[in-house]
């Protein structure tokens, strides 16, 4: 299976999906008007990955901003990971937030309460 790498823009995050290491990285800003198109290849990649996943999958989400349209797509990604976990694979989501960014921490906690995957909240200190 191929890895997937998408460069970040002002409105969309950089994405790195590596089937060899099982590391998934989403970083930057996610504020497109319509996020479905942007996230579709990621969701499709995850469907493929789930057929033969790494024993351990680590997800690093480090977003500076994301809009409500993206919030739904991010949840859809987390739901894929939840299925992966249900299929007895090890899954961990690392949710990064900047120091004092309580809204971002709260968003992470919102996801944590919906999705049955272990989360780790990681504060980034300047």
């Amino acid at each position, binding site marked *: 299976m191929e890895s997937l790498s998408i460069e970040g823009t002002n409105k969309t995050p950089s994405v790195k999906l590596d089937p060899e290491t099982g590391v998934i990285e989403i970083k930057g800003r996610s*504020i497109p008007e319509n996020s479905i198109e942007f996230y579709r290849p990621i969701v499709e990649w995850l469907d493929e990955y789930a057929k033969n996943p790494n024993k351990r999958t680590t997800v690093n989400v480090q977003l500076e901003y994301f809009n*409500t349209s993206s*919030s*739904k797509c991010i*949840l859809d990604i987390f739901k894929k990971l939840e299925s992966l976990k249900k299929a007895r694979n090890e899954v961990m989501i690392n949710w990064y937030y900047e120091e004092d960014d309580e*809204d971002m921490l709260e968003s992470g906690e919102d996801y944590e309460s919906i999705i049955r995957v272990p989360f780790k909240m990681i504060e980034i200190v300047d």
Partner: protein
Amino acid sequence: MDFNIDDFYSQMNSGDTILAYKGSVSSELITNVLEVMDAKLEDLIVKKSIKKKLYNILVESLQNLYHHIDDLPDASNGKFDIHFGIFVVAQKEDHYKVSTGNFIKNEKVKSLKQRLDRIKSLSKDELKELYKNILNHQEFTQKGGVGLGLIDMAKRTEGNMEYKFTKYNEEYSFFNLEIYV
């Protein structure tokens, strides 16, 4: 009282304006406004958490505007640009005000009013629960939204928003939303 867009705009535009726009609201415009504001906020605001909160409100209010404008029929096009909207960011003492204005069909006014009143009446925890519930159960609309914009903004500002509907004609009203950060 007749609705006059220029009076309305200058009224919105009073105080310490950081940015004001009146015209067609497109995806490109949103990108440009966000870029300009990103740089401006960097200069204006020292506290990063306030800057982030305000930027989030800018993103959400602009995209809400973009998704929910009702275009007036062709006959009015000489007067208003297509997908016409108003957007103002102002500083008032120690807080910031983000205002948007757009036409909306009269038939939608009642339900939007009810929605806004309900959102404004909810506590922080209730907003959080409502947000999570919609996030988890709502599917995307045709417009590519999830109906979370207003709730998200209320959640970030603890419901600090005001609205006004002004009747334009038999079919349309002008909807003005102000959010305080």
